[in-house]
């Protein structure tokens, strides 16, 4: 297969060992991730590298999924791991939807391969960004710049005949500007990232740095948002978090099988207003959650989750696809070889609409505008929501007025989606983030869309 790598002999050992495990379905995943992080603040610079390797062997039996994992990669360890699966040999298994076997060896093309850029150049770029921001205003007490790159090389072998390897580079950069005045400390932050190369640093332009400095200074005089049920205008990043955290987790079919999804019986029914169409797309070019195939060996594809407000698909792995008689969506993912695979999202985003953001603001009497998402968390059974943004503005009579401090949106997801009455055509973006299944098992994801106007509970 394709180019040779230093992992080829380990992969050969896995393939040979797995062939002797007596279970109807087994697979082996070999994972290698090389990461570099550079951090700078006024006090110091940190540079660290991290290499994570590991093997995960998996079998499906009447006792459920069996995993044996190690980050040792020698043949003795591989045989020991296979022995851990063998105790269930010969037992009956449930049904699985196995994808067509694939033979694949792909490397995601980066405009600027991060591993071809000198470390000294990367460090100098971080220093330049730090100095640029630091000198923009006397109220700045510190600037934190973080650049990270991670190249994942993952190989999947299955008893069904798949041999697939993908090499995916992901990069991110964050610039946090901290200001202080009259005893009040505040900040704003600019981020960029995706399945891309070192070109990510080009996205933090001088204008973006200046906007972040101004955003931080503006926060010094920001006020808390008015509370309670009201109109809300969300920026594209916040829209992405709503689509992903609040809504999308309820579509993970493993949660439905557990009896843990408020959307379990909603397929084909209205879950949002007609203005809302939501996609889940691991094949999206440049998305932080992009990959060629999932960790079950299903090829990536663009999935429509909601079409003009109607729920059209759940997300599946090889087990739930069989149990729910639905097509595979290439949604099986693991953080690394030390963990199990779950159904996960990749790049989740909303389709643009017909408004401009200027029209949306102009035609709004009163609303809270949420900007710069910070985090969200799922409530797959209850259908509740929590989405937090760092800042925003109060909209009064069609004009953006006071800056607002941290804003939390809560309420019922379906009520918020059902109340969407305007979607912008401009501002489309898919932001980079990391998502946990609950509080663990983090995978890189992209979330986004364009501006939305809806109604929700603000805290």
């Amino acid at each position, binding site marked *: 297969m394709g180019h040779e790598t230093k992992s080829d002999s380990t992969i050969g050992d896995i393939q040979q060992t797995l062939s002797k495990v007596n279970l109807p379905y087994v697979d082996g995943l070999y994972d290698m991730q090389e990461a570099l992080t550079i951090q700078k603040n006024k*006090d*110091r*610079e*940190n*540079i*660290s*590298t*991290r*290499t*994570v*390797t590991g093997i995960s062997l998996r079998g499906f039996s009447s006792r*459920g999924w*069996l*995993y*044996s*994992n*190690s*980050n*040792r990669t020698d043949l003795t360890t591989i045989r020991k791991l296979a022995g*851990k699966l063998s105790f269930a040999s010969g037992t009956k298994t449930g049904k699985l939807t196995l994808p067509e076997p694939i033979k694949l060896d792909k490397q995601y093309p980066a405009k600027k391969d991060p591993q071809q850029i000198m*470390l000294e150049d990367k460090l100098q770029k971080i220093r330049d960004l730090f100095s640029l921001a630091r000198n923009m205003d006397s109220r700045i*007490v*510190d600037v934190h710049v973080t650049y990270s790159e991670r190249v994942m090389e993952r190989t999947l072998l299955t008893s069904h005949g798949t041999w697939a390897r993908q090499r995916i580079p992901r990069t991110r950069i964050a610039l946090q500007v*901290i200001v202080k005045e009259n005893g009040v*400390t*505040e*900040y704003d932050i600019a981020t960029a990232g995706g399945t891309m190369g070192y070109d990510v640093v080009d996205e933090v332009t001088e204008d973006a740095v200046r906007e972040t400095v101004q955003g931080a200074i503006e926060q010094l005089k920001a006020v808390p948002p008015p*509370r*309670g*049920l009201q109109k809300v205008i969300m920026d594209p990043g916040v829209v992405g978090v709503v689509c992903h955290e609040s809504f999308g987790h309820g579509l993970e079919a493993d*949660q439905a*099988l*557990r*009896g*843990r999804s408020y959307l379990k019986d909603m397929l084909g029914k209205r879950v949002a207003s007609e203005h809302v169409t939501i996609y889940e797309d691991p094949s999206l070019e440049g998305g932080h959650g992009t990959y060629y195939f999932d960790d079950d060996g299903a090829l990536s594809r663009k999935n429509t989750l909601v079409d003009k407000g109607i729920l059209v698909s759940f997300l599946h792995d090889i087990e739930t696809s069989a149990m729910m008689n639905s097509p595979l969506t290439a949604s099986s993912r693991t*953080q690394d070889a*030390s*963990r*199990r695979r779950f159904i996960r999202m990749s790049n989740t985003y909303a389709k643009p609409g017909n408004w401009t953001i200027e029209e949306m603001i102009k035609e709004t009497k009163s609303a809270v505008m949420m900007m710069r998402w910070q985090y969200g*968390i799922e*409530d*797959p*059974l*209850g259908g*509740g*929501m*929590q989405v937090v943004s760092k800042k925003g503005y109060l909209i009064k009579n069609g004009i953006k007025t006071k800056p607002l*401090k*941290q*804003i*939390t949106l*809560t309420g019922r997801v379906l009520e918020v989606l059902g109340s969407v009455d305007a979607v912008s055509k401009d501002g489309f973006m898919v932001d980079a983030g*990391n998502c946990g299944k*609950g*509080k*663990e*098992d*983090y995978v890189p994801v992209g979330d986004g869309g364009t501006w939305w106007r809806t109604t929700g*509970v603000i*805290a």
Partner: protein
Amino acid sequence: MVEDYWGDRMNIPAIMDKTTKAQWEVFMQRSRRMEVQLRRSEREATIWQENTGYGVRVIMPRGDGAGAGFASCNSESEIESTAKRAHDLAKLNRSPFFELPEKKKLPSVSTVDKMILSSGERVARDYAEKAQALISKERDISLTYGKVRTYAVKNEIMNSRGLAYKSIGTYIYVEMTLKVGLGSNPTEFWPSRYARRVSDVAPDKLVPKWLEIARSSLRRHTPKTKETTVIFSPSVVCDAFVPTIGFHASAEALKLNLSQFKQDDKIGSEQLTVTDDGLYPYGLRSNPFDDEGQAQQRTKLIEKGIFKKRIYDQLHAHTMRARPTGNGIRTGFGADVDERYSTLPANANTNLSIEPGNRNLDSLIEEVDEGIIIHEAAWLNPDQITTQFGSEIRNAQEIKNGDLGEGIVGGTVSGAVLELLQNISGISNQAEITSGSSLGCVAPYIRFDRVQISGPT
């Protein structure tokens, strides 16, 4: 037993001394995890995992500062190349100089549950089965998903000053999702806990307690928007205090001009006394030494509402001319237990231990005419710098005229943690080792006055 797995090791000091003339440190972890995941009455997955990792740091004096490089790997055979990488990185950057600790007598602290150490697989399986059996007796509550995981972890550190320490620790992690109500509008109680030993989260104690909270949500409503008296459960206290008090009490926050604590200033109610206790028996961040090899200790941070002392790692102790307090802690995104080797030490708390009050929880509730007790928030996650937070209320109960009433699900609790410290009106008389999104807290229930609650009306 885990001993046989740990086996022999290469001569790491010899490799390091050959690779660099600068100061070096190697932090190693080896662990075994065993996990059972449940889907309703069945087993969804069984995961067996062994983990080995090495984190190498090199500190190279240069001019009036130093260069510091860090690299990690999973294989002993890669230590030499990893050390070389760390050495090369240290040539590039600019950091303050500091010295790694020397060897000295260490305190002793309890961190091991012998049952987990010797039979982690059986402990996890038995716990899962017991929990399933207890929950299956409920009429209106069912288990939808659960995780029980045990860890046996060996930590080892050595440095160029001749320091070489080892320690062993065990952990158990329990997470359950309980579906509350059989009708078309169920809700969920989704708690999780880490502990060092099974007895701290024993299924016959913890599961009935969780079921009782879940039952309180059978009849529920959303809250009204108002400022009211709110009692935080120990895990909610943990989520509120660890990222905020832990940060503002650190030397690093002071160095960066971000700390809102000044020595001898009143920063909270007189009822509040907080110790950073690295030696709390079976505390989640208890260990004889911190992740730089400094002895862990007890440091009183806040006494009767007055801020007293800061916590220091090696770097900040050196640059701020203070004594290190054993607060060089490795922690990262999902890497708090056996993957710490891959992270750099940071100036952080060990176990934040909040001194219990003198009244029991019932008394704290009885004194409230109108308020809320919050058992679980969705994700409090306060901002480290501003300490602001806003979280959906997942499982709470109203308090009316001193009695617990209907469940409250939905709406939001919000505010700024450092402002809440001024509004403490009661602390319960029993603290427990707890965890939320953060490890490292020993907390009682705490009652706060004038907390913002927001609902749809």
